[in-house]
């Protein structure tokens, strides 16, 4: 573990994290079309935190310490993924709090919502092959200093499920250059052992970007699904657990 940011514990416990005698509370937003909200709550529980269900129509975040925007199709997403969710009451508060440093993780649809809300730059477009794709995806951790990645090492490769139809990350060149320069590319698609390099990128994302962070490192969005890789029984690995233990460790510190 090489967590180097000031706030992150250098030896984050992977067991239950406690602040002031309580478990770290992480909210999971449910939009009417959210699908992976249950899984995100389960992942938080398995990581030792207390999941708190948040409802899209409710501005109140119920004193959570961090928020996960889960996968799914928030409001059907026929227009563009996340386009309507951005205007929901709960997002108004989340945007405010995120700007003040609250850790926010957007997974898949959550990532799309974060981009639509301008908490993260760029946008997600139709996969270049125009199909929905569900597969186990290899990722390289490029930045382990964000609120959600301190339990990984830089350069570590992890495998978690990926499943989306609009996961192609795009931004203009200037933005992409800035993201690279500032070390804000958090995850990149990579080929697993035995897989040809040209099959690494599942959707035509620019510069193989799978996930990014904001300048402060508290807001992270990615297309793949760490919450589906927390139990060896139901996931390809348990590599996704580190997201949640990272955030919980920070809450303890």
């Amino acid at each position, binding site marked *: 573990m090489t967590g180097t940011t000031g706030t992150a514990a250098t030896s984050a416990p992977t067991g239950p994290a406690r602040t002031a005698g309580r478990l770290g509370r992480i909210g999971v937003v449910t939009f009417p079309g959210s699908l992976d909200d249950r899984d995100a709550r389960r992942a938080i529980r398995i990581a030792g935190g207390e999941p708190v269900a948040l409802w899209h129509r409710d501005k109140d975040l119920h004193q959570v310490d961090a928020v996960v925007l889960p996968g799914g199709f928030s*409001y*059907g997403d*026929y*227009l563009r993924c996340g386009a*309507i969710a951005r*205007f*929901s009451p709960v997002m108004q508060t989340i945007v405010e709090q995120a700007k003040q440093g609250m850790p926010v993780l957007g997974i898949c649809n959550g990532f799309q919502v974060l981009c639509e809300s301008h908490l993260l730059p760029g946008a997600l477009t139709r996969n270049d092959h125009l199909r929905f794709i569900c597969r186990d995806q290899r990722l390289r951790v490029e930045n382990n200093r964000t609120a959600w990645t301190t339990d990984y090492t830089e350069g570590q490769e992890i495998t978690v499920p990926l499943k989306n139809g609009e996961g192609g990350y795009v931004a203009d060149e200037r933005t992409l250059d800035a993201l690279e320069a500032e070390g804000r590319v958090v995850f990149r698609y990579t080929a697993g052992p035995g897989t040809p390099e040209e099959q690494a990128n599942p959707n035509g994302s620019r510069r193989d970007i799978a996930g990014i962070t904001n300048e402060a490192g508290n807001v992270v969005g990615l297309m793949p699904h760490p919450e589906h890789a927390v139990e060896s029984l139901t996931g390809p690995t348990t590599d996704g657990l580190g997201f949640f233990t990272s955030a919980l460790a920070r809450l303890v510190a």
Partner: protein
Amino acid sequence: MARVVVDVMLKPEILDPQGQAVQRALPRLGFEGIADVRQGKRFELEVEGPVDAAALRRIHELAETFLANTVIEDFTVRVEEPAVSEEAPA
């Protein structure tokens, strides 16, 4: 090079979940006074050579067999006039 635009819209009697989703969201965004929204596809084709009746006929055929699904969609084909995109007052 001339631009031909093919607009493809769901037939009126067919449910348009996309348009409906937009419409349902409008009040939440504070928009009133829009009675109906339909969402369709717009194709811009850059055609080499003259856009004569023969070319248009071929594009019409393309629209009918490929760009539109005529079981559920209608389409229109038109040559775009020079100054098309008149933006609304900002």
